[in-house]
């Protein structure tokens, strides 16, 4: 049996996990530090490149595992997010000096290993061709995160982990329950069979569909399954938060698309209503929640809820949905990570509240500019990547045959509301003068060289994505068909 080239990435990822684990256990402390950290992010970057290089032109199958061209951008997103999470962990790992106010991760090596495992799980999700693989992939993507959330020594971290675990378990229960109904209705776990047997008149299938969607809704933190997000974002270690906010969502979306355009394809029209509901309620609740937040991580959680609303809006539409979501995710992940990197630097010596960001433009112009660009990209301001990303989501909902113009209007107004709170951040870093109390507790901000470099690269990337259409066309070639 010959392996399809596209499967190399999955294997490489598995191997990378093993290498990290082995070097963590076997090597001496000095070598270990270099290999575990640098090996991991370089490995993930290389796998990302490999993903791009081995992108298939058509579907490639190995047994029950299917590499679809449209999943390639998603896989790239997973790799990028994984690599960035590793880089973001830098100041929580030992050996760089104690530069995060919440201390060090319990075990950096395991943390990195778990990131890679989780990434592998996401890869599996995108390759799934039956419900079992799908479920296993999702669990592999999620369970390591429960552990990672607990990787700091403080109570917040433990509490976040526990909450995440409990709520995640319920969502898994939903998913499994739904899958059992789907199996009952379709008499198969295989997507191709299900696609033919799950028809809209089969009410029995609907229980399955709804429960599965609820389970995925948890992964996406789509309202009303979003309640965990602010608490966990605030409590989990920063790299884990960033990872949950980006990669985990991307995986959920990949899974969702897989189902919607696979087994659920005959339910299309009715699913549109569900997505419309989810989109509307997510963006509304997300936006309202983000208003007047005082803590940055909670703020990012709410904003991500709102962002998911926009993405779900695209799913009500037609062909444009997949490529636009893929492009949006890429942009969104980069934008998110810029914000998390900046805040992570900031958090070296202060809590991540807005009041502590005041005067940032004077203390560190670079960080301030990066945060500004990140916020504007998330808000969808040109010429940053976020503009086209968000705009295409709108267009996707306006495709012939799927014209949801009221939804677009509602979403566009929500985008304006979201702009408000993103601008509040900008206002805090650029305009509001720090009060004396804010200032006195803020010593200089330490930025590690690797993080500074990453920030610059990311900022350039987000501008380039907004003005240079190469990546955009690549995604559309892969995912457009």
């Amino acid at each position, binding site marked *: 049996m010959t392996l399809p080239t596209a499967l190399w990435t999955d294997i490489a990822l598995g191997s990378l996990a093993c290498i990290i684990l082995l070097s963590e256990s076997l090597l001496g402390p000095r070598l270990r530090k270099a290999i575990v950290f640098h090996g991991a992010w370089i490995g993930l970057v290389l796998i990302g490149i490999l993903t791009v290089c081995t992108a298939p032109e058509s579907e490639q199958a190995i047994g029950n595992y299917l590499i679809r061209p449209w999943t390639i951008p998603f896989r790239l997103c997973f790799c990028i997010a994984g690599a960035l999470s590793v880089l973001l962990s830098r100041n929580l790992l030992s050996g760089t000096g104690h530069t995060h106010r919440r201390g060090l991760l319990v075990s950096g*090596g395991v943390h990195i290993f778990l990131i890679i495992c989780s990434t592998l799980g996401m890869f599996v999700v995108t390759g799934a061709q039956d419900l079992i693989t799908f479920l296993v992939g999702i669990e592999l993507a999620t369970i390591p995160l429960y552990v990672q959330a607990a990787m700091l020594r403080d109570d917040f971290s433990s509490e976040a982990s526990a909450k995440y675990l409990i709520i995640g378990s319920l969502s898994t229960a939903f998913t499994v329950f739904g899958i059992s109904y789907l199996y009952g209705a379709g008499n198969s776990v295989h997507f191709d069979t299900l696609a033919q047997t799950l028809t809209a008149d089969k009410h029995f299938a609907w229980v399955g569909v709804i429960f599965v969607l609820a389970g995925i809704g948890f992964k996406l933190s789509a309202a009303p399954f979003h309640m965990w997000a602010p608490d966990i974002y605030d409590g989990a270690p920063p790299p884990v938060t960033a990872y949950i906010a980006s990669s985990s969502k991307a995986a959920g979306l990949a899974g969702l698309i897989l189902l919607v355009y696979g087994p659920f394809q005959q339910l299309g029209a009715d699913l549109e209503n569900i997505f419309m509901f989810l989109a509307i309620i997510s963006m509304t609740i997300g936006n309202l929640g983000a208003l007047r937040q005082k803590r940055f991580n909670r703020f990012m959680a709410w904003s991500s809820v709102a962002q998911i609303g926009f993405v779900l809006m695209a799913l009500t539409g037609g062909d444009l949905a997949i490529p636009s979501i893929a492009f949006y995710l890429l942009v969104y992940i980069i934008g998110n990570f810029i914000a998390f990197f900046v805040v992570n630097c900031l958090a070296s010596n202060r809590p991540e509240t807005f009041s502590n960001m005041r005067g940032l433009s004077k203390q560190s112009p670079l960080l301030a500019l990066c945060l500004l660009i990140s916020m504007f990209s998330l808000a969808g301001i040109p010429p940053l990547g976020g503009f086209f990303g968000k705009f295409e989501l709108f267009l996707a909902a306006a495709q012939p045959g799927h014209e949801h113009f009221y939804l677009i209007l509602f979403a566009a107004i929500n985008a304006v509301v979201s702009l408000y709170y993103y601008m509040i951040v900008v206002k805090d870093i650029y305009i509001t003068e720090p009060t004396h109390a804010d200032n006195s507790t803020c010593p200089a901000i330490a930025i590690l060289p690797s993080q500074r470099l990453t920030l610059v690269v990311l900022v350039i990337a987000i501008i380039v994505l907004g003005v240079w259409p190469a990546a955009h066309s690549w995604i559309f070639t892969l995912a457009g068909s």
Partner: protein
Amino acid sequence: MEATLTTDILFYLFSAAILGCGLMAVTVKNLLHSAIALMGCLFGTAGLFLLLDHEFVALMQILVYIGGVVIFIIYAVLLTTHLGTRYLPASTLKYISGVTLAAIVLGLVLHIDPQATHTAVNPDRTATTIDAIGYRLLDGSTNGFLIPFEVISVLLLSAMIGAATIAKHQKPGATNDEDETGGSAS
């Protein structure tokens, strides 16, 4: 198993056991009692599987859940100080909302299609023997589940390592020295 009077009676017995134990599990105040009630609940489920001729699943149910999970829970309850004797407060409001939510889920499932059982396809029973399951798990073709099987191993590995890491270092006063981390992983 062919549907006979006996199977019917057994079905209702098991169902009653599941419901009764389930109710008990969520209502009793002592955690230990709750865990034991849960065990009864799981036994009932295993019985239902047996009635459906799925011996393997029934076996797994007993092995994994009763033999593994519930025993773990009981250990945890017993080993943790105070947890066995501390009663969790439960207000009326919580009861009411709990019952309401349960009713919602039940209503949802029932309402979506009252004739649910009739439209469900009867699964193929031949594939449920232990051999067949084993073969399917190791089958790399489109019918098999080789990849999920492999992935589960990674999942278990990561879960174990992760759990061990946290467990080891959650002790109060643990040092920041990273060298210990490596030891735990091996």
